[in-house]
């Protein structure tokens, strides 16, 4: 058992420990802080090398904030972000000295949702690519240009496109350029925040296939954030389901599809329309909307919309624990307390 665990640990690239990101809400004349939006609330998980971790949830559940916290685009309120560094040891990115911390930034890159907003319209592609490479001191000027050409080639674009401006490209091409831009810095982890939701279906498939190919080629690790469950399921090895800032269930992607344990995951999966005639199953319709993250419900955050709500759910918060026999499948729900591994 311990051997298994150390084996697993060896593959872990990034560990999140009790990561929290609260945004202050201020009101009144003096702009006093009156509350906090708990966008990411106490998340603990591992990201393994070479895997794709899918993160799904409805809008406002904190999935994008989680992604941005990994890059420290938002400074997490508390918690630890442990990255395996070159020496093989884990270092907490949030407490590293500034110089050290800067060196690690290159290793985690991001692809954003809107390929139209991710480029400065005044800069051509070469300038946009060159800036981060120059800042990180990657090679001489000619080496960098060579590298940019290489990056563009890997995403099936012609290298001479680098002297064009963003407006000359279509949405699909721009998203390819975004991917190339992230690749140019030789990252290990790429956080993809809804990379295909702004694209048309026919383009979407091109980008998804490209991302999968690149992952195999460069041994990349992806954190794939999306609201479209069928896309996430297609891309991911493991999936984390988020609801109001918490991970409610995390499991192997096949396992999650076969057997969802959390009532929210069940509802989420059953709500996805399937493009096959007669594929419709009995749908679990959730009542109401996602509550406000400023004042989340007490106890289990899903209890006001849950079909199986019990007394305990309104009072206590269920812990995220692995299932007996399948430690990798973790769920935060009191329905499964008996089958769960006790801490």
């Amino acid at each position, binding site marked *: 058992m311990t051997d298994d665990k150390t084996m697993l640990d060896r593959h872990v690239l990034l560990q999140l420990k009790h990561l929290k990101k609260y945004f202050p809400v201020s009101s009144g004349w003096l702009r006093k802080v009156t509350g906090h939006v708990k966008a990411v609330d106490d998340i603990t998980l591992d990201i393994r090398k070479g895997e794709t971790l899918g993160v799904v949830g*409805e*809008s406002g559940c904190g999935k994008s904030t989680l992604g941005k916290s990994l890059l420290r685009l938002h400074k997490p309120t508390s918690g630890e972000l442990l990255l395996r560094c070159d020496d093989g040891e884990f270092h907490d990115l949030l407490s590293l000295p500034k110089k050290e911390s800067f060196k690690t930034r290159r290793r985690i890159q991001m692809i954003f949702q809107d390929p139209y907003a991710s480029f400065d319209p005044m800069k051509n592609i070469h300038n946009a690519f060159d800036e981060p490479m120059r800042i990180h001191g990657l090679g001489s000027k000619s080496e960098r240009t060579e590298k940019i050409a290489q990056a563009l080639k890997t995403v099936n674009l012609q290298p001479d496109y680098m002297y064009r401006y963003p407006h000359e490209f*279509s949405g*699909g*091409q721009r998203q390819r350029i975004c991917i190339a831009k992230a690749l140019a810095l030789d990252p290990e982890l790429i956080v993809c925040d809804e990379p295909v939701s702004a694209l*048309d*279906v*026919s*383009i*979407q*498939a*091109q980008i*998804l*296939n490209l991302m*999968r190919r690149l992952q195999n080629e460069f041994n990349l690790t992806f954190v794939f954030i999306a*609201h*479209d*469950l*069928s*896309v996430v*399921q*297609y*891309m*991911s*090895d493991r999936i984390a389901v988020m609801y109001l800032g918490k991970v409610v269930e995390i499991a192997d*992607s*096949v396992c999650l*599809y076969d057997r969802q344990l959390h009532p929210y995951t069940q*509802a*989420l*999966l*059953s*709500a*996805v*329309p*399937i*493009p*096959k*005639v007669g*594929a*419709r199953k009995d*749908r679990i*319709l*959730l009542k109401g*909307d*996602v509550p406000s993250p400023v004042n989340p419900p007490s106890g289990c955050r899903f209890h006001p919309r849950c079909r199986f709500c019990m007394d305990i759910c309104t009072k206590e918060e269920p812990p995220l624990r692995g299932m007996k026999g399948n430690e990798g499948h973790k769920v935060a729900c009191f329905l499964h307390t008996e089958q769960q591994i006790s801490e």
Partner: protein
Amino acid sequence: MEKDYILQVKNLETRFKIGKKTVHAVNDVSFNLRRGTTLGVVGESGCGKSVTALSIMQLLPKAAHIEGGQVLYTPSPEQTLNLTDFKRNSKELRSIRGKDIAMIFQDSLSSLDPVYSIGWQIMENLRMHEKLSKKEAKEKIIRMLGELGIPSPEDRFKSYPFEFSGGMKQRVMIAIGMICNPNILIADEPTTALDVTIQAQILALIKQMQQEHGTSVILITHNMGIVAEICDEVAVMYMGRVVEFGSLLQIFENPHHPYTKALLKSVPVLGMGKDTELESIEGTTPDASTVFKGCEFEPRCPFAMKKCTEEHPMVCEIEEGHEVRCWLYEEKCKDDRR
């Protein structure tokens, strides 16, 4: 048979004049909507599906005009109106819009007026078409809001759009559309801005409304999953043309046009797993102002032949009610609908 159709669109052509360019947004589009059924119009962005809907209602922007074709609306077996005969702001058309044919728009946030209460906005449509006192109208609206699952409708009647969530606003949009009990409801991407769980609620609601009131629905979407779930017939559009039209089964089980086939294979389906690869359509959708001598899909089509670049494909009938615009099925072409 003809009387079975509540709406027939025949050879509709809509053009946009942008500077010196003319964009052929809708090209020779024909389809029929059967009474009490749901027709799905699918296609990617820029394929003209929304403009088709707007052309039916003549809600087009100033730069656009309908160049040809007919929109035949048959409210009762004795009466058929050609909507394209009316001027866009004529009295006749205004009495049809909102009353007989209603529309739900994609973006409920920008479709609702932020300075009026939602009750006022629903009342506006209702009192325009029906002679009701304010009190009666209010009662009717509150009943409607209750039916749509808005909690405590009496209080919500006076609320403003900013006080509602996205799903609730879309319910208000449905209330505005359905309050006059229209014969046809055109829903333009009604759930695109919403989360999946809310989307499921809204789709269930549209279906419930349809069953209760016998409304015919035109559902415009890009999501094949939604089509498979609630439509009876499907029109697939590409670059301003209907490339394939048929019943749900015909389109999903037996697609003929290369574009429809590719479209169905390029979306990931839940439970697909990581081993299967998606089939993607090469290239990108051409600019809308490009004029093609031949088939619009030819540059991206894996089966393209010489003839495809030279002549527009004719409508070919595969089975009864299943039509394809593709040269691959030339032997089944109908000569009269060139």
